[in-house]
C-alpha cells in the first residue's frame, strides 16, 4: 500500500479544509471500500481524513414527516431502525441484502453511496480501465462483461454501480445533504451519480472535498408499501446481478402512484421513470406491469455476455410490482 497520512478532523468545516489543499486526499467513512481499494493499489490517497466520528449518527424524524439520517449512521443501524423498517421497508431490505454483518457494522450511510464499481478490470491495476486511468481504454467492452451495464453506458465505460442501498434511496426520492468548499447543497439522489459519458472517472457530481453529511427521506405515505428484490448468484453475500426497489400506492385496483428503481443495470441507480409514467392511473395487472417494464428496457443495449439481464430485469420488476399491488399474493 502506498504510504499516506491518517488525520482526524474536529468538525465538518475542519474536515473540508483538511482536503482543500490535498488534491490527492480522501475522506474515510467506515473504510470498507477505500481501504480495500488501497490494498489493491487502485486508490492511492496521500491523506485520509477520518469523518466517521464527526458526523451525526442519528436517525431523526423531521418536521415535515420525513426522516433525516446522519451520514455516519452504520448500515446495520439504519437497516434495524424501527421507523425505517415500517415506513421505508425497501431501504431496510436493501441494506440487509448487502455485504455481511461485519461489514454493515462498519460501513456508513455516506460511504455506501460512494463505493466504487466492482468491475474486475477496475480492481486490477494491470489492465486498461478508463475509470481508473482515464484514456487507457475499457477492458470490459470486449472482455468479461457479464456483470456490466445494459442501460446508459458509453463506449468509455460499461460499469455498474454496486450499492443496494442507493437503489432503494432512488426509489424513495431521497436527497443527500453535502457540505463543501462552496457551501451546502441538497442533491436529489437521481442527480448524485452520473452516467459515464466521456468522463467515467467521475462517479458522481460531487466536487473534491465535498462531504456528505446527511440523507433526507421525504414523507411519502405509500413508501410503507415498498420492497427491494435482489437477484444474485448465491442466496446471500453477493453483489446484485439485477435488483429492483419499488413503492406503490394502490386504490381499488388502480395504481395511483409508483416509484421504481433498478440496480445492477447502469452506472447509477436507474430510476425507471418510463415504468412509473406508464403505470400511473392504470389498473393493476401483470400484463400492464410487463408492458411498462418493456418500455423501459426497450432502450437496453446489452453487451456480449449480459443479454440475460434484459429479461431478468423485466421479470424482477413484474414480480415486485405484482407483490406490491397484491396481485402476486
Amino acid at each position, binding site marked *: 500500500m502506498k504510504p499516506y497520512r*491518517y488525520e482526524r478532523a474536529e468538525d465538518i468545516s475542519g474536515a473540508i479544509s483538511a482536503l482543500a489543499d490535498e488534491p490527492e486526499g480522501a475522506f474515510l467513512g467506515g*473504510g470498507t471500500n477505500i481501504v*480495500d481499494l*488501497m490494498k489493491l493499489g487502485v486508490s492511492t490517497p496521500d491523506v485520509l481524513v477520518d469523518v466517521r466520528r464527526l458526523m451525526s449518527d442519528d436517525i431523526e424524524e423531521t418536521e415535515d414527516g420525513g426522516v433525516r439520517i446522519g451520514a455516519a449512521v*452504520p448500515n446495520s443501524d439504519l437497516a434495524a431502525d424501527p421507523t425505517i423498517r415500517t415506513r421505508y421497508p425497501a431501504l431496510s431490505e436493501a441494506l440487509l441484502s448487502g455485504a*455481511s*454483518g*461485519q461489514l454493515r457494522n*462498519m460501513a456508513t450511510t455516506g460511504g455506501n453511496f460512494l463505493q466504487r464499481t466492482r468491475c474486475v478490470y477496475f480492481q486490477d491495476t494491470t489492465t486498461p480501465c478508463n475509470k481508473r486511468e482515464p484514456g487507457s481504454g475499457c477492458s470490459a467492452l470486449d472482455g468479461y462483461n457479464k456483470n456490466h451495464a445494459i442501460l446508459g453506458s458509453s463506449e468509455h465505460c460499461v460499469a455498474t454501480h454496486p450499492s443496494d442501498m442507493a437503489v432503494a434511496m432512488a426509489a424513495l426520492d431521497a436527497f443527500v445533504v453535502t457540505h463543501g468548499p462552496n457551501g451546502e447543497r441538497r442533491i436529489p439522489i437521481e442527480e448524485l451519480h452520473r452516467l459515464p459519458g466521456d468522463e467515467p472517472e467521475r462517479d458522481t457530481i460531487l466536487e473534491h472535498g465535498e462531504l456528505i453529511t446527511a440523507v433526507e427521506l421525504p414523507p411519502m405515505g405509500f413508501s410503507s408499501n415498498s420492497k427491494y428484490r435482489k437477484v444474485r448468484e448465491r442466496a446471500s453475500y453477493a453483489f446484485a446481478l439485477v435488483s429492483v426497489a419499488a413503492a406503490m400506492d394502490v386504490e381499488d385496483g388502480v395504481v395511483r402512484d409508483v416509484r421504481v428503481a433498478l440496480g445492477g443495470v447502469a452506472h447509477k441507480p436507474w430510476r425507471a421513470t418510463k415504468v412509473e409514467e406508464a403505470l400511473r392511473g392504470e389498473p393493476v395487472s401483470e400484463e400492464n406491469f410487463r408492458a411498462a417494464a418493456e418500455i423501459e428496457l426497450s432502450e437496453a443495449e446489452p453487451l456480449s455476455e449480459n443479454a440475460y439481464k434484459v429479461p431478468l430485469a423485466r421479470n424482477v420488476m413484474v414480480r415486485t410490482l405484482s407483490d406490491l399491488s397484491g396481485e402476486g399474493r
Partner: protein
Amino acid sequence: MKLECKVNGENREADGVREGESLLYILRERLDLPGSKNACEQGECGSCSVYMDGMLVCSCLVLAGQAEGREIVTVEGLADENELHPVQKSFIEAGAVQCGFCTPGLIVATHDLLERNAKPSDVEIREALAGNLCRCTGYEKILDAVKLAAAKNGNGA
C-alpha cells in the same frame, strides 16, 4: 504513530505503528494475539472478526487510526481463565472444526449472534454467519455447533 486501545480488558500500546497497518496486523504482529486469522484481507472471509466497541467487524479493514482509543475484544478474550466459552466448547463437541482456520472468526461471530438473538432459526444463523467462509466443513456441523451453543445458553450454562 503510537496506538493505544483496550484489548480484552487490558490497556495496550503499540509503538512505531505505520498508518497503513490494519487492526488485524497490529493484533497479530504487535500485540501477540494471533487468534484472529488473516486470510483474504478484503473483508470477504470473516476469519479476522473481532469486536470493536461491542460491534462485530472485520479487523483486516480497520485501520490503526480507526482503532485508536477503542475497546477491542478478540477470540482470545472470550474464554474464562481456565474454561473455554460455551460457544468454543460447542464447536469442539459438534465437530465443527477441521483445519480450524475459519474457527476463531466463526466463534466471535457466533458469540455476537447469540448475544443479539438467543434462539436463532436456521435462516437467521445462515444470514448472520454469511460473512464467515469455511472451505472445509460444508457448514452443516457449524450450524449444529451454533444450535448446541444456543441450547446450552438456554440451560443457563
